[in-house]
């Protein structure tokens, strides 16, 4: 989780969105189901990649299906490049979809899968096949043109699916968990490739993922959806630095607290105070990474009493080459430490520890 936050920070600044410009996507998607209501507002400029990020069951896929026209809207609107699409059937929308498990037609070769869209949209057989061949070439899949989907590797299948979706020249590209079906090894390369293809794509892309890393690498802007609502929106860097819900904080690997600031001190809603470098007032969030936490077995002598909490180890797990300690006590928090440090501290569940965080490593921002 820390990784993702860091890599997000290392990203170059994304292009600024123009969510209210004339082109692009403007949508309010309302879908009512028994016991569930999706109500999200989305906007994206042409060329922008939007990621819908959220836990399972948050309504991300429903939103995607609504954009594609596969799930009817209960309410709201959907405008793409100025045209209203609410009442357009899916086959008439200028929308391309890469499904989670790709849904490549198993009886057609890779080439015919890609040629399917152009054929349906009126291209002649030869024309469609030529177009499809060009797309496969572009995806580096020319040798696989005659291969049936069953014989493609996961990464190849994903690229065929992408080519198939792009071959209809959509004005809106939808990707549902585009990397979820891949194993970890392939994933890295496919993600990089996909990022390149998305960057080349001139129209709006919306991708749905529950993986923050995918979202941060691939998207210009994240829309975090929880329980059918948008809970936070922003650039990956912004979201990684300033999470506003526990879910996002967990995703980006930060300890997150809510409290009332007065000067450099933030009094938490249900707990002790944290001293910060920022000087704020009113309701704020305070965040700091687990790596900023230092643990002691005994109360550190001479240390300032600020940002020092008495805790107890609730659980330990390896986290990369580090140990992640989950602490309860005065302030519940996660702390990362080296295996050596963990051994020296003789950490085990139930062990009392003192945790401290430097004020300079916390980050407070208005709630």
């Amino acid at each position, binding site marked *: 989780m820390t990784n993702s936050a860091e890599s997000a920070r290392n990203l170059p600044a994304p292009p600024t969105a123009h969510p209210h410009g004339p082109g692009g996507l403007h949508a309010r998607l309302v879908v009512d189901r028994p016991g569930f209501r999706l109500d999200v507002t989305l906007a994206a400029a042409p060329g922008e990649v939007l990621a819908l990020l959220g836990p399972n069951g948050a309504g991300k896929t429903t939103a995607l299906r609504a954009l*594609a*026209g*596969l799930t009817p809207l209960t309410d709201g609107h959907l405008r793409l490049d100025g045209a209203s699409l609410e009442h357009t*059937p*899916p*086959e*008439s*929308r200028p*929308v*391309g*979809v890469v*499904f989670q498990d790709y*849904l490549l*037609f*198993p*009886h*057609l070769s890779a080439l015919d899968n890609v040629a*399917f*869209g152009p054929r*349906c*949209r009126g291209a002649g057989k030869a024309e469609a096949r030529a177009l499809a061949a060009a797309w496969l070439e572009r995806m*580096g*899949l020319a*040798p696989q043109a005659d291969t049936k989907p*069953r*014989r*493609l*590797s*996961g*990464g*190849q299948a994903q690229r065929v699916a992408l080519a*198939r*979706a792009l071959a*209809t020249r959509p004005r809106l590209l939808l990707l549902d968990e585009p990397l979820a*079906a*891949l*194993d970890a*090894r*392939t994933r890295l*390369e*496919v993600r990089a*490739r996909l990022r390149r293809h998305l960057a080349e794509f001139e129209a709006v892309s919306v991708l749905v993922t529950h993986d923050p890393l995918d979202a941060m690498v691939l998207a210009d802007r994240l829309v975090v959806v929880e329980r059918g609502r948008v809970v936070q929106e922003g650039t990956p860097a912004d979201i990684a630095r300033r999470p506003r819900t526990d879910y996002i904080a967990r995703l980006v690997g930060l300890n997150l607290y809510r409290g009332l600031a007065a000067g450099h001190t933030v009094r938490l809603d249900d707990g002790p105070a944290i001293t910060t470098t920022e000087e704020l007032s009113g309701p704020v969030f305070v965040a700091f990474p687990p790596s900023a936490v230092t643990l002691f077995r005994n109360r550190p002598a001479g240390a300032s009493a600020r940002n020092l909490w008495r805790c107890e180890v609730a659980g330990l797990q390896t986290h990369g080459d580090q140990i992640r300690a989950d602490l309860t006590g005065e302030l519940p928090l996660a702390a990362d430490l080296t295996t050596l440090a963990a051994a020296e501290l003789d950490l085990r569940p139930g062990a009392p520890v003192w945790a401290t965080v430097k004020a300079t490593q916390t980050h407070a921002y208005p709630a």
Partner: protein
Amino acid sequence: MTPPDAPGAAAGPRTDRPRRLRTGTGGRRGVPLPLLLPGVLALAFLLLPLLALLVRAPWRSLPGQLTGPEVWQALQLSLVSATAATAVSVVLGVPLAWLLARTRFPGRGFVRALVTLPLVLPPVVGGVALLLALGRNGVIGRWLDSWFGITLPFTTAGVVVAEAFVAMPFLVISVEGTLRAADPRYEEAAATLGASRFTAFRRVTLPLIAPGIAAGAVLAWARALGEFGATITFAGNFPGRTQTMPLAVYLALQNDPEAAVSLSLVLLAVSITVLAGLRDRWMTPS
């Protein structure tokens, strides 16, 4: 651009071509007796009568009995009409199966029950019902007669109609089951690529459910081939025109059981040949 993911490099969950015959237990664990005994008993129960037919067949007089022109006439008619009835069942039954599996309309469950009615209806009653509907004086038949001069009873077309009536439910049920098992999201994927529902059906669903259609067609064909009651009631019995093998067998049974056994053997041999052939060609995952 180096292709980073050659097939095989990705250790994804992609399985290799499924084997045709797979032993579920892997051979190590024995088959439970409560399954083995009834299973073997069922097999014996199904095969013994056929075996008896073979054992008691008049092998010596068989060649003489089978060289009669009526036999080949009946066999030819049986094959032609069963195949035509299967074709009718496929052309009309697959769309019906699609409607039942993929659309919602009030009373769909009731309609599905109605479709299976010919399965439980005694075929003779089915034949009478066909006469009442499509006969010369039937509800629809009288218009067919007066407008187009078409009368179905006592014609080969009538045989096809009778056989299709009893055989089509097998196809519809089989195809509907396949459609329900098939992932409807392929149709959605086709829709997002610009395919109308019909195009999606034709170019995606149809190829996907082809094995189910083949299985249903084989069932329907077999049922049509053995059809007796509805055929003799609706189409009558006239050698070369409406006398199919089962009719010939039944009538031979009246005074020459030996001939009946011989005819049955021919029917048996032909259907086993055809079914085995079709199974190998169509019903294996390609």
